């Protein structure tokens, strides 16, 4: 028995050592460690990004299907949530307009990378002409996408990127530094230049959120140096968990907490709900990424002033248009823009990315014009 107690104590000590070992990181928790490129402060002009040569991959010996009917499968991070239903809707809209595309959406019911890999693998075996994807992990998804390219299947990403050489193009809903700037500027406007804030994210490893947080940190250091980051908490895109985490933040920091960032379309409304329930509307600001429908009640009750997002239907639409343009040979390495149906001309940035546009800030004045 004594031996057991000793073992347990040793194990506990070990666990503690592990848990406390990571020294206070210079980074905000939940940020990744890739290089950042914060935009200019305020409304200052941004330097034009340096033109980068095409760095995407290439489908090997892809059959020439210009103008012919193609089969395209869309494999988002997961299926059955509002956001990816909206992108899927956009893909269908574009397919219908084009008239020569058969598009289906399929994918895992949970955002798990190994499940997603299996889905892509199966569709490669089945034989499709094109794959649209939103990656659960940028590196882990790369081998299977390269396999698709090697079999002559066109691969286009949207929403969440892979490593560039594993796909041909990536439709970027909004550049990370653009979102970060909108978020930090909106927060600074609401809580002042010396306010303290906390962040509710999905998990520390989710690529988009990690990128945004890293860029927010870089932009805050540059343009809002006195604002203070308190903590980042994980809530896994889960409603109840997000609400609980936000409530914990409110209780833990009390008056010190002036604002909460919601990094996911689940965390933002849940944080707003937590602030409303705590009767702190006006005292604790909520700024975040969210779909307008979920935020309408809080925006109308003045609890939330700004919601940052892009239009996911347009995102899916653009991805499908880009796929068709690639198959038809209308978008080639080195091009600087592409025509995407009703969206008009979209700009190529960053070597092999297509930019959907600047992020959109919803507020009381415009939110009722949107329904998704």
């Amino acid at each position, binding site marked *: 028995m004594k031996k057991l107690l000793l073992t347990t104590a040793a194990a506990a000590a070990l666990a503690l050592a592990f*848990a406390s070992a*990571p020294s206070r990181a210079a980074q905000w928790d939940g940020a990744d460690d890739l290089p950042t490129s914060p935009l200019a402060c305020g409304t200052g002009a941004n330097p034009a990004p340096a033109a980068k040569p095409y760095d995407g991959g290439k489908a090997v010996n892809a059959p020439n299907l210009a103008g012919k009917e193609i089969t395209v499968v869309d494999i988002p991070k997961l299926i059955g949530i509002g956001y990816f239903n909206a992108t899927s809707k956009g893909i269908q809209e574009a397919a219908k307009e084009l008239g020569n595309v058969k598009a289906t959406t399929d994918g895992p*019911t*949970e955002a798990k990378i*190994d499940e997603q890999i299996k889905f892509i693998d*199966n*569709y490669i*075996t089945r034989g499709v002409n094109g794959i649209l994807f939103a990656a659960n992990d940028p*590196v*882990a998804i790369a081998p299977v996408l390269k396999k698709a390219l090697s079999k002559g299947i066109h691969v286009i990403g949207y929403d969440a990127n892979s490593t560039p050489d594993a796909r041909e193009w990536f439709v970027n809903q909004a550049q990370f530094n653009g979102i970060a700037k909108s978020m930090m500027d909106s927060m600074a406007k609401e809580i002042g230049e010396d306010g303290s804030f906390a962040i509710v994210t999905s998990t520390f490893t989710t690529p988009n959120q990690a990128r945004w947080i890293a860029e927010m940190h870089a932009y805050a250091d540059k343009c809002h140096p006195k604002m203070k980051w308190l903590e980042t908490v994980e809530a896994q895109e889960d409603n109840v968990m997000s609400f609980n985490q936000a409530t914990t933040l409110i209780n833990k920091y009390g008056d010190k907490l002036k604002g909460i960032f919601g990094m996911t379309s689940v965390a933002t409304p849940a944080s707003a709900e937590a602030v409303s329930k705590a009767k702190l509307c006006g005292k604790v600001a909520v700024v975040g990424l969210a779909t307008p429908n979920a935020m309408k009640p809080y925006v109308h009750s003045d609890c939330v002033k700004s919601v940052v997002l892009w239009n996911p239907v347009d995102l899916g639409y653009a991805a499908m248009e880009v796929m068709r343009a690639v198959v038809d040979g209308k978008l080639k390495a080195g091009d600087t823009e592409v025509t995407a149906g009703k969206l008009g001309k979209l700009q190529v940035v960053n070597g092999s990315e297509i930019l959907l546009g600047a992020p959109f800030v919803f507020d009381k004045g415009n939110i009722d014009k949107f329904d998704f």
Partner: protein
Amino acid sequence: MNRYLKRHETILAAILVLALIGLGYLNDQFLTFDNLLNQGRLMTEIGLIALPMTFVIVTGGIDLSVGAIVGLCAIVLGVSWKNWGLPLPLAIVVALGVGALAGFCNGLVITRLKAPPLIVTIATLALYRGLAEGISKARSVRGYPDWFYELGQGQALGVPTQLWILGLCIVIAGVALDRTSFGRTLYAIGANETAARFSALAVDRVKLIVYTLSGLMSGLSAFVLVSRVTTTRSDMGLGYELDVIAAVVLGGASIFGGSGTIWGTVIGLVMIQLLKNGLALTGVKGDATIMVIGVVLIASVLIASSLERRRE
């Protein structure tokens, strides 16, 4: 001969063959050499853990922490190489060691405190997953050298590398369970633990070995998984325990202990993997596939048990 035909494994194998023929008939990409080998690659990680899980379940226990151990070992592998500066081969050994240690701790608590394995491993599931997230600080590790991917993505003699390892492990586990006194002891413990103790069998020591094996194989599975997907994340292996247990139980092992074979587990494993793949290739969508799998699981267990009852 007749007795042999009515065994659960035989019936299950027959159902598997029927399902294969059916799915092969429905689409012509399914029964190709390439596809089947590829599916073998994808099922290796679950398969490696299903073998020791069969041992655990035969003794009447359960190990729910295997998925968390996969996550922990993957993280230890990545972090000890990248952040602690160990050479990669040593990091692999360390990861396997951590897996074995994690399993050993499970076994220790289960045998010394006489706590139910279900409760102990639910607790360690949370503990190990938490450790994985703490150690990794939730960052992923990437950029392994090319030779490291050989195991997960390469092939030897035309067969995916990891499938050789799985095959070897299956043979060893099969012989160990069926032909050795160690295997007999497992059945004895599962059938009646008290009787086993009175028969002077080293019940606690054998259990300790079995849970340690379970941890070690989870570590091996983590190594294969990291090599296949080229990256390390703390959420790796999430939910593996359910896939593993489903394969073992479908293979005829009784959750109350005392029965189950490696062959049954292998058939159960292959059946679930090929059904998922076959349905996907036939055009059944992701959410529907899960439902069909559930129905098939229930149906095959029902058929098998009703046939068995008739025999009795």
